[in-house]
């Protein structure tokens, strides 16, 4: 079956507005505005089983349903394009090929939610994606599909771009709201949840790029069709998997939800690079636990990946080969998180550098037996930090201690990294 997200892609240049229209683009928007109530659009999204593609996998329709219908004042939709999770580049690839699915999806979401004014929050470094979106928004306005009185109706919706200046924490939805308001991007405490009190204290929905880009297809072809795209009955839709590390083809692929890890690596990725052997992978961006060779048969779907102790996350698959030191890899990941902590709460701000110090010492041959205990304490107690950054950082560490404890112990007992200069 034809998958919805990459079907308009051209190999070497972005799809044009005319091409997108010709291939059925904006038909879903016209269909919704002329023949569906906002509630019907929301119901279609609920029925489709679409889950947030940014990493948390929360059911999108349910998130929308938390927005109170009766509050006065403006409400907001924000598209989260602050894609800074290491190993993740799917939103960039999508938008560099096609900004229109997102624009159409956002317009549909605004219609469903009663939003007049939406924002796309774009990370630094995604200027090409931002340029595509800027052009796409202008074209959609020109065609009467965005702006005042869309498609001749009395519905008016605007989308603005907000370009950021580079910080991982801005991807956390409440930090993103602070960033958009021009405040320091520390996360806010929940409750109140953004759906009730978010941007400028108004009800706010924050959705990922890929999530919103799926909505036109759901509205056009119906929730049943969307569900049937998945290979397993629990799943729904397709997923963008962006692969990096030790595979032959490092690229972003749209595959049905439920495709197994092994099928991704051996299929579109063309297998392991230079005849290397698979050792482990991080399945969904830096804040997910390692999967090992025994997990190659796991269908890549939110619930099944969670069942084996990791997360589907953002779909950023990072593949490690035999001979690759996972203590060093985890150290690199922790270093990232320690640097990207916003500095608000103690466990994250102070605990991550502590973990980093220990891992660096172990990797350098100065590890001690008691370090394992200290690391485990951090895995447990960093889960009580203010937001999900530090617990996310602990996921690969927990994976290291679960699946590769022997490797860590070998570092300690040999007083050196066993993978270096033997």
């Amino acid at each position, binding site marked *: 079956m034809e998958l919805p997200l990459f079907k308009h892609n051209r190999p070497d240049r972005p799809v044009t507005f005319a091409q997108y229209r010709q291939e059925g683009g904006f038909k879903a928007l016209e269909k919704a505005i002329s023949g569906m109530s906002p509630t019907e659009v929301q119901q279609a999204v609920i029925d489709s089983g679409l889950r947030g593609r940014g990493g948390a996998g929360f059911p999108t329709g349910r998130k929308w349903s938390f927005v109170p219908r009766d509050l006065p004042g403006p409400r907001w939709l924000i598209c989260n394009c602050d894609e800074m999770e290491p190993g993740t580049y799917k939103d960039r690839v999508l938008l560099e090929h096609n900004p229109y699915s997102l624009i159409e999806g956002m317009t549909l979401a605004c219609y469903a939610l009663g939003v007049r004014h939406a924002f796309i929050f774009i990370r630094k470094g995604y200027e090409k994606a931002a340029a595509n979106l800027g052009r796409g928004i202008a074209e959609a306005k020109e065609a009467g599909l965005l702006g005042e009185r869309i498609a001749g109706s009395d519905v008016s919706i605007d989308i603005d771009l907000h370009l950021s200046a580079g910080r991982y924490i801005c991807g956390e939805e409440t930090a993103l709201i602070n960033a958009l308001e021009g405040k320091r991007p520390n996360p806010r405490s929940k409750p109140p949840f953004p759906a009730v009190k978010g941007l400028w204290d108004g009800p706010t929905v924050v959705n990922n790029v890929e999530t919103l880009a799926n909505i036109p297809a759901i509205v056009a072809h119906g929730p049943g069709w969307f569900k049937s795209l998945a290979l397993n009955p629990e799943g729904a839709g397709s997923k963008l998997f962006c692969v990096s590390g030790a595979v032959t083809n490092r690229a972003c692929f749209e595959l049905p939800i439920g495709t197994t890890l092994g099928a991704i690596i051996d299929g579109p990725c063309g297998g392991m690079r230079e005849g290397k052997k698979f050792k482990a992978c991080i399945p969904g961006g830096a804040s997910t636990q390692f999967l090992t060779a025994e997990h190659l048969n796991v269908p890549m779907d939110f619930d099944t990946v969670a069942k084996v102790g990791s997360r589907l996350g953002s779909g950023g698959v990072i593949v490690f080969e035999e001979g690759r030191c996972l203590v060093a890899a985890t150290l690199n990941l922790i270093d990232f998180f320690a640097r990207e902590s916003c500095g608000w*709460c*103690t466990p994250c*701000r*102070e605990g991550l550098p*502590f973990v980093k*110090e220990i891992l660096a*010492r172990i990797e350098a041959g100065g590890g001690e037996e008691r370090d394992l205990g200290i690391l485990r304490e951090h895995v447990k107690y960093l889960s*009580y930090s*203010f937001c999900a950054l530090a617990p996310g950082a602990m996921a690969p560490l927990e994976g290291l201690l679960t699946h590769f404890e022997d490797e860590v112990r070998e570092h300690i007992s040999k007083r050196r990294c066993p993978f270096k200069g033997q």
Partner: protein
Amino acid sequence: MPKLIIDDIAVEVPAGTNVLEAARSVGITIPHFCYHPALAIAGACRLCAVKLLDGPVKGIQMSCSLPAQDGMVVSTTDPEALQLRSMVIEWLMINHPHDCPVCDEGGECLLQDFTIAGGHGRRRYQGKKRTFLNQYLGEGIQHEMNRCIECYRCVRFYQDYAGGTDFGVTGSAGRVYFGRFADGALESPFSGNLVDICPTGVFTDKTGRFRARYWDYEFAPSICPHCSVGCNTSPQNFQRELIKVVARRNDQVNGWFICDRGRFDKGYVNDGRRPRQPMIDGVACGYEEALDALAGRISDFIGMNGTGSLALVGSARLSLEGAILLGELARYLDGAQLCYFADSSLSGGSLAAVQLLNEQNAASLSDLEGADCIALLDLDLMQEGPMLALAVRKAALAGAQVYLVAAEPGAAQKDLPFRCTAVGSLDEVPLEGGGQGGRRLRRRRKGARTAGPPGLDRSEVGHAAAGGERLRRGAAGP
């Protein structure tokens, strides 16, 4: 009124009380750094962890951010909560310089107390400590950033509570820094509260540095003598010298804070030239002797000129005790003139104001904080009573309409830490339902307040009081 159980003690608290305060109400102190009753909840330090054993919420929770609810069963001594607290202390002590012997906060340091209470005693972190450069923050406050535990209390007070804009937090991750854009004196007239509110020694009182330890001081509950607001203070005295003044909590008056004048302007108390001994014609003597001499001379004067020629001159800035004694003396010397003002219209105005004040229309600072509409008669709030300005700010942030009746609106408005509407006269303030303020008043049944300077004459005072009375009656409406 939620009912819950904390450490096997049944507790009932007003709705909206957090678990930390609920525990405190039955004498259980849950260690905390970022939480402060006067400031918005931050949830940043993660020290106040408790475990919810049963009820609507389960597991480890931060007691500052958790409203007490019916049926909660809370343990403040659960091993997991204790372990988390111990780790929080360990994390905070990773970079703390352990310079307690040379820190002025020593002995009154929350970090010392909770480090002991938290049970962390052995260093496991083997890396280096991070260090910062300090800033010059003026003559009142000494800055020592290396001691910082990043509880964000200072910036939450300085910017959010007091409306200052020249002090805040920069950087991120392990490099957050609390300071100014560049070296220079803090601009807020409430900056001294950073000393009280910092749980450790990042901000210490430069005017009393390295003089004594907390346990050396003599304390006495006191009232600030600098203006008529009457903020509660605790002067700290060592060897007959006033070393520091700190705020003393009084929720009806100043809450937790005082202004910088009240805290730092104490030079005159310790001034060597200040008379410390009674003297007669420049010659030192005993108190009894001096009083006898004074009585004798007054008596001689009256004998020659009559009581009608005697004026007893006080001052509006005289302490309450002094003012009462002066009044007593005037009553005793029947016929003597008692004056407090150089100008009779000022005197008349003050007298009228005092006569019009009664239990119904007198407002405390906490009344002001809860008002829906505030009219400020032509006065320089930051001079007349800076803490009044903070109370008005609190009301304004909560949505109160604030009007400044001013001849020169621009000048008086410049430094106020809140937004207000300047009007030409009290008549322009929508007191009786004309404006939004009036409508809200009636709906919410909350009083409105007027405040004025001592310089108003009798008719102005009467006018203002009448306005206030109209407001009060309006507020008590349907």
